[in-house]
């Protein structure tokens, strides 16, 4: 199972920084990079580990049997040249060393608990998802706080409000004062004229105003409305459950 391609993203530099223990314990800074860290493909890893164990075990069993057959057979020759002289001893010893090494490898495999690893991967992926959600929201809030109050690049020459009736009436004060949760601008000018029904504002200066929502998608939309870049690259975000 080749997982290499999965780590060829630009996020590869961050993958190794998010150690399983750190993520599980919450010991990870809430930075943009966290959003780009993929979860661990548990199925792929477990399949690779299983395949390694099975393949090597089968090979070891076959190989060890052949080694012992040769060793015993050469011993039965009762021969210097085949078993007892210096070179023979060296060669037979090397062969038996392979047998010992394979035995050690199998013992090492025995120390690798598949169940424990599977549980750890589940925990990691769960913790990473929560971490991403928290971090994403925090990043948006921080970015909005930084953007709010900034003077907008575009200026408006005039703006009419309908304080007394009409569809926009309910928005008048909120919009005018910039207290509404849905507006993305604040107006900094007094009423210049009014015909009784309509107030006209001229010499309009607008300022960014992004009100964050618990729904990050809505917040991201407001960022786009005011032309402020998001504090991360949404397309790079993987494996996140909104």
């Amino acid at each position, binding site marked *: 199972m080749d*997982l290499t391609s999965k780590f060829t993203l630009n996020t590869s530099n961050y993958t190794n920084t998010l150690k399983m223990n750190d993520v599980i314990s919450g010991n990870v800074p809430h930075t943009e990079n966290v959003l780009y860290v993929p979860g661990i493909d548990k199925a792929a*890893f477990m399949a690779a580990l299983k395949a390694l164990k099975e393949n090597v075990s089968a090979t070891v069993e076959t*190989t060890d049997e*052949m080694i012992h057959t040769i060793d015993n*057979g050469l011993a039965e020759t*009762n*021969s210097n040249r085949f078993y007892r002289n210096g070179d023979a001893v060296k060669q037979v010893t090397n062969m038996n060393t392979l047998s010992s090494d394979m035995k050690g490898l199998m013992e090492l495999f025995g120390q690798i608990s598949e169940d424990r690893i599977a549980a750890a991967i589940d925990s990691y992926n769960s913790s990473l998802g929560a971490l991403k959600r928290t971090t994403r929201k925090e990043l948006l809030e921080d970015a909005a706080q930084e953007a709010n109050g900034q003077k907008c690049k575009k200026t408006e020459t005039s703006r009419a409000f309908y304080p007394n009736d009409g569809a926009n009436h309910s928005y008048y004060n909120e919009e005018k004062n910039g207290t509404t949760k849905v507006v993305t601008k604040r107006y900094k000018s007094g009423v210049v004229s009014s015909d009784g029904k309509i107030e006209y504002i001229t010499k309009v200066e607008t300022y960014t105003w992004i009100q964050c929502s618990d729904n990050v998608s809505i917040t991201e939309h407001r960022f786009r409305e005011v032309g402020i870049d998001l504090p991360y690259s949404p397309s790079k975000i993987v494996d996140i459950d909104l």
Partner: protein
Amino acid sequence: MSELKKYDDNFLSESISNSSTIGSNADSISSDIQHFLHSVDPRVLGYFDADVTTKLNQYSTTMENDSDNMQHFGQWLNDTYDDYVQTVTKVKEIANSMDFNKVDSTINGVHGTEGKPKEEEEKKEEEEVLVLTPEEEEERKRKGLIGRRGSDGGEQNAFAEGGNGSIGGLQNNAASISRGSGNNTGSYASLVGLGVASVLEGVGALVEEAKEKKEAQERMADETLVEEEKKSSNDKDDSKEKEEKNDNVLLGMGIGLAAAAAAGKFVLSDDDKDEDEEKAIQKYMPQDFSNSDENKA
């Protein structure tokens, strides 16, 4: 002397092939580990117990080295087996070129009488045996003439020492022939003189043939001794002594002649293959006959 060796050509050939497979398998294990380590999520590897990943890497390297060692093992086994096969082939070639009927004639004649007919030699020996009294026999022993009757050269040592029917007797006989200490006209001494001996190591095949010859000689010796017993039933002790002597002589001679065919380095097993000829000779030469010049004298 080590126990009889057991060579199985099929096993050795198969082992050479299997050693290559073993090496490939070790290499495959190493590759599997490396593939695993480089393909799976490193975060999980980092979650392993502290040194598991390190050990996996170490085992990968170890398996790679073991694979190399197995390649060397296969080459060594192949070379060793080739050497063994070539040696056996040469020994058999030499053994097949020998005229064992002629050897038998000489052996039964005991005296190295240039391959005279067996019956004639037996008859002559019987006559001589019957003539000797215990006193005469003892006198001949003191003079070192036992086993030397009517003959010069290398076979004499076999008469004296080869009587135990052991490989040592065979080797002693071969040694004495090789040294060319006498004018023995046996065909095997000639072979040795021609330098055949320089090639061969005594391997199982020859030993087996020598043993077969020895057994044949034993049977013939038994037959001869039965007749002797019949003819000298009045002097059992004397007859028994002669029987043993003849038996010893025949056994040693039989093995010795066969060994001579393969001799040069009078090594009948791998155990002795590294010893030079002179050491082999000294090793197996009985003290009384270690000097051929003395024998001649």
